[in-house]
């Protein structure tokens, strides 16, 4: 069923920026030289040295802690108790409601009640993300701006996305192939979305945000379930079985299929982008002793989608993750995780293709060196091997490499007083291109009352160079038109954040965060002394700023209302004398505001949900703002059966969300879910 393909389409391996806007590159039959990947022995040695330096880090960085008293706990609801991270091992060492960062959480309930069938559509529920659907299966997702520009081949690349601890942004260009990241929606426990930098814990690429997708324990998905949705535009189905082998071992296996029809281009022509995907996977949770838990999960994925003017693109992926967590009697926790991940994309009929395999080892240790304080430290080592077979004028030279990445971090939460916490952290990361990056952060949180928290943070993050920055070669006919820059530097961010989280009444909760981001060495398109080839430079700098606010209000047990508003501004510049090719809009064309309103009602077995969103126009592009409404009506019949009516984009026949994007149509789907 799932095989490694060897087709692909030149530049189209980047997700769904299509020919409409892309530089049209003619097919050119040159086969690039292939050199085998250079081993980065030096990086490995540095990583080992870093690991040795960890005790030093512990003693010289302050560490964050949980200062929970029984009094605090007593005032919490039972749901809030269930949300307290007592392990500190998930790198967010605090209960989410107290983490000093702009975190929103998409709960399982929200996911099921949205009726969304794909991960990007689920992410529309996060008030601090911007989601642009570019085609039937293509998405661009950002936090705090920088949505890129297809014309300038600037692809959104400043988000870190984790699925059960496995990083899914591709090392090839630091973006995410959203059409390769699926989890059956009902298996998701929750999604934590952090806007703002998280580099101190998660390393390079956690520049503008972190999306942390956590799936359910296999013990929570027992029994047989079958669910499906079908409509005129999209269909999906999932079959799952969860069982136990003895008291200590639970497992589940699933198979899911998705299928979507073609959209139309902005001009109304068929976009030929119909798509199909088939995915299967399993998760196994084993608790051999009271102190140890082991989980093993994996997925296999295959699919294809159509493209305009060229053969279909195929996608293949597979991953396997093993994690061991040991909870010592003294409360310390040790976690060791290893994963392998395979991704391949290619265009049929002799187009280009690539594969990339990633091997990752990650260690984390959380301890309580002092009552009320928490120290988390850890290290990771990652190797990514790839082979890119160019075609259509796009090549990577060398075509194959092995990229070694190593890092070590420590973060301490220190309770200065009962109500004041200081979180200090440092990550050192050694990447294959520029060596060691130092990624510090400082956070302070203050709880003037049990219902109020104010936090502030200063942190630094970087986006490391990738093969797309250093190795790419693009041809127009026989003319070398664009060449990567081996001296490309990291893109750097220093972020200042201030936020508050309030619960003025039991039914009302609010979160407001403001940020000021100072960027330097952002990627720009530059000319060479002979004009061509163009190359990448680091000549853009500037700042962005904004406010994100969201809140929920629950006037009655049966009714929850939510609202959000993001305001955004930016100003980027070239240094004096720069050629300013393609302008500052190559960084992105981000809406100045985004707002949403949601309503969620339950009447016994019937649930009614509506989510309205309004997105501002994109300033440097001819994409007007739009407002849309998604909705769902669900009807549970007994414990085993639920019927639903799911609607997306009810307000208009179609709308366009991204420059060069296709028409995203209104759609209605009927859904059935049964569980035994």
């Amino acid at each position: 069923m799932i095989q490694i393909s060897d087709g692909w389409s030149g530049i189209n391996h980047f997700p769904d920026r299509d020919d409409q806007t892309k530089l049209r590159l003619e097919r050119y039959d040159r086969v690039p030289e292939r050199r085998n990947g250079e081993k980065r022995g030096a990086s490995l040695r540095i990583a080992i040295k870093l690991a040795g330096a960890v005790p030093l880090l512990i003693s010289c960085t302050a560490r964050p802690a949980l200062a929970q008293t029984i009094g605090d706990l007593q005032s919490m609801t039972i749901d809030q108790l269930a949300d307290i991270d007592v392990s500190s091992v998930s790198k967010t060492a605090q209960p989410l409601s107290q983490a000093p960062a702009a975190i929103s959480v998409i709960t399982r309930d929200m996911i099921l009640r949205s009726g969304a069938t794909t991960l990007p559509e689920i992410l529309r529920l996060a008030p601090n993300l911007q989601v642009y659907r570019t085609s039937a299966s293509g998405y661009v997702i950002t936090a705090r701006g920088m949505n890129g520009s297809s014309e300038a081949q600037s692809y959104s690349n400043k988000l870190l996305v984790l699925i059960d601890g496995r990083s899914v942004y591709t090392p090839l260009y630091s973006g995410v192939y959203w059409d390769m990241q699926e989890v059956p929606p009902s298996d998701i426990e929750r999604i934590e979305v952090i806007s703002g930098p998280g580099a101190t814990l998660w390393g390079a690429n956690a520049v503008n945000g972190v999306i942390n997708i956590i799936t359910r324990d296999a013990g929570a998905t027992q029994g047989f379930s079958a669910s499906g949705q079908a409509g005129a535009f999209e269909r999906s189905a999932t079959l799952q079985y969860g069982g136990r082998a003895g008291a200590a071992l639970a497992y589940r296996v699933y198979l899911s299929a998705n299928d979507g029809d073609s959209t139309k281009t902005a001009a109304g022509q068929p976009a030929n982008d119909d798509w199909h995907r088939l995915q299967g996977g399993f998760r196994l949770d084993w608790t051999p002793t009271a102190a140890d838990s082991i989980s093993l999960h994996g997925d296999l994925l295959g699919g294809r989608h159509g493209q305009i003017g060229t053969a279909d693109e195929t996608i293949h992926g597979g991953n396997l993750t093993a994690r061991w967590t040991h909870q010592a009697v003294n409360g310390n926790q040790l976690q060791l995780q290893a994963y392998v991940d395979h991704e391949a994309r290619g265009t049929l009929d002799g187009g280009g293709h690539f594969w990339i395999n990633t091997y990752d080892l990650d260690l984390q240790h959380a301890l309580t060196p002092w009552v009320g304080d928490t120290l988390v430290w850890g290290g990771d080592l990652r190797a990514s091997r790839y082979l890119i077979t160019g075609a259509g004028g796009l090549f990577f030279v060398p075509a194959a490499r092995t990229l070694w990445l190593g890092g070590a971090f420590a973060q301490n939460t220190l309770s200065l007083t009962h109500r004041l916490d200081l979180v200090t952290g440092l990550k050192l990361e050694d990447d294959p291109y520029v060596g060691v990056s130092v990624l510090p952060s400082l956070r302070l949180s203050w709880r003037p009352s049990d219902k109020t928290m104010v936090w502030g943070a200063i942190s630094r993050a970087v986006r490391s160079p990738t093969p797309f920055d250093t190795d790419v070669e693009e041809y127009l006919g026989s003319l070398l038109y664009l060449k990567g820059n081996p001296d490309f530097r990291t893109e750097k961010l220093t972020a200042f954040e201030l936020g508050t989280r309030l619960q003025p009444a039991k039914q009302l909760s609010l979160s407001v965060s403001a940020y000021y981001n100072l960027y330097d060495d952002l990627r720009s398109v530059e000319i060479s002394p002979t004009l061509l080839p163009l190359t990448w430079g680091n000549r853009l700098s500037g700042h962005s700023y904004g406010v994100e606010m969201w809140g929920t209000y629950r006037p009655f047990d049966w009714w929850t209302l939510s609202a959000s508003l993001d305001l955004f501004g930016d100003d980027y510049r070239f240094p004096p004398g720069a050629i300013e090719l393609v302008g500052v809009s190559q960084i992105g064309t981000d809406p100045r505001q985004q707002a949403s309103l949601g309503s969620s009602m339950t009447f016994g077995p019937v649930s009614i949900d509506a989510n309205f969103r309004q997105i501002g126009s994109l300033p440097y592009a001819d994409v007007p703002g739009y407002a849309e409404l998604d909705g769902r009506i669900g009807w549970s019949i007994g414990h085993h059966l639920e019927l639903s009516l799911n609607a997306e984009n009810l307000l208009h026949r179609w709308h366009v969300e991204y420059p060069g994007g296709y028409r995203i149509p209104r759609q209605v789907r009927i859904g059935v879910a049964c569980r035994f």
Partner: protein
Amino acid sequence: MSVLTRLFALVVATVAVAAVGAAAKAPGSALEFAVKASYLTKFGPFIHWPPGAIPDDGPAQICLVGVDPFGAMIDAAAHDQQIDGHPLTVARMDAVDAKSAASCQIMFVGKPTAQSTADTLHAAAGLPVLTVTDRSRGVAGGIIEFVISDGRVRFDIDQGAADADGLQISAKLLALAVAVRR
């Protein structure tokens, strides 16, 4: 304690930990047990006891049988809490029989001291007592079992056992459970 003193203490403590290494005996996971103690005092409103299960004029009682991992935390957590208008009290015992078990509305079965876990649970079987164990610490059985799921204190519910004891568990609590056995 002043901020400076605490900072100094932290530096001393972290250096000590780094020096002694993993063998260092850090204070236990106080938060984990504080959360479990809070759960025990908050389950009440989500359970329907049959009429007469709670004495009309008496308090509702949380019994801790065997090793008590909570200490004063659970007394503090139970303070000012109620079940159906009955004030909540905490009693500690090494062993129970059917008679003494009947005086409990909620029974937390800790690591055994004088009586095996099976015998303790057997004594409460058939009585309207919400039995709770801590599987994350190696004691399993009863209606509710604490587990650690993704760093959070959560629980499994054995609805069949609750039915057999005449207890009704609200849908809200069932929804919070990691797993429900029927």
